[in-house]
């Protein structure tokens, strides 16, 4: 987490979970970044990440995906996993950022 802060990378997590769930979950896990609520999946749809009927009760949810966006608003890097159980490692994001910004890692 500190590695992201020192590089000036802001993190925002997005899901269909409502505000209250995000507040509780964020507190419980001790996360310091923002959790954004998209209960109607509008933004998830805008990013074409909707995974229909994949929720626990067949709800439409987001597929796991990560996007690194530069200050001009351009997508610098993205990761769309093909396996819901396999997620990106934080180190991979940091490495990508460092390479693009011409710094050596750590």
């Amino acid at each position, binding site marked *: 987490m500190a590695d992201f802060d020192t590089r000036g990378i*802001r993190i925002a997590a997005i899901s269909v979970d409502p*505000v209250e*769930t995000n507040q509780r979950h964020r507190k419980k896990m001790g996360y310091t970044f923002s959790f954004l609520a998209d209960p109607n999946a509008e933004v998830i749809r805008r990013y074409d990440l909707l995974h229909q009927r994949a929720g626990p009760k067949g709800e439409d949810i987001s597929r796991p995906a990560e*996007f*690194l966006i530069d200050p001009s608003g351009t*997508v610098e890097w993205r990761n769309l996993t*093909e396996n819901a159980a396999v997620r990106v490692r934080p180190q991979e994001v940091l490495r990508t950022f460092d390479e693009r910004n011409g710094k050596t890692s750590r």
Partner: protein
Amino acid sequence: MWVGFLVAIVALFSFEFFVRFPMTRDFPWANLSLFAIAGVLLVIGLFRAYGQPGVYRGRIFGPILTIVSLVIFALFSYALFYIVRQMPASAAAPQVGVAAPGFTLPDQDGKQVALRELLGSDGTRAVLLIFYRGYW
């Protein structure tokens, strides 16, 4: 043989536990190992039950437990290797090099946050958007 059945049950439910660690999450070695151990114990149990019926009981329960364990293993494998790979195509998801679609969403305190605000805030050199499945 009973132990073998129990290990199969443990192998199924310990998945929840092992997913917390990246190494056992990306590929569930620990769970598959437990299933393997369970299988060996069940086979030993079956041989004993049929080979020395005087010493070991379980000629009825043995096959039942073995079948139940196999079903558990089959369901686990199905979930593991098939369901998790059923992903939407996301052909229209923003590509590298294009402008990320803007949005405004409420954060955990109900405060409206715009992507442009996040990008424009002091000292920010990049924003990492993490879309996740939710239902926490």
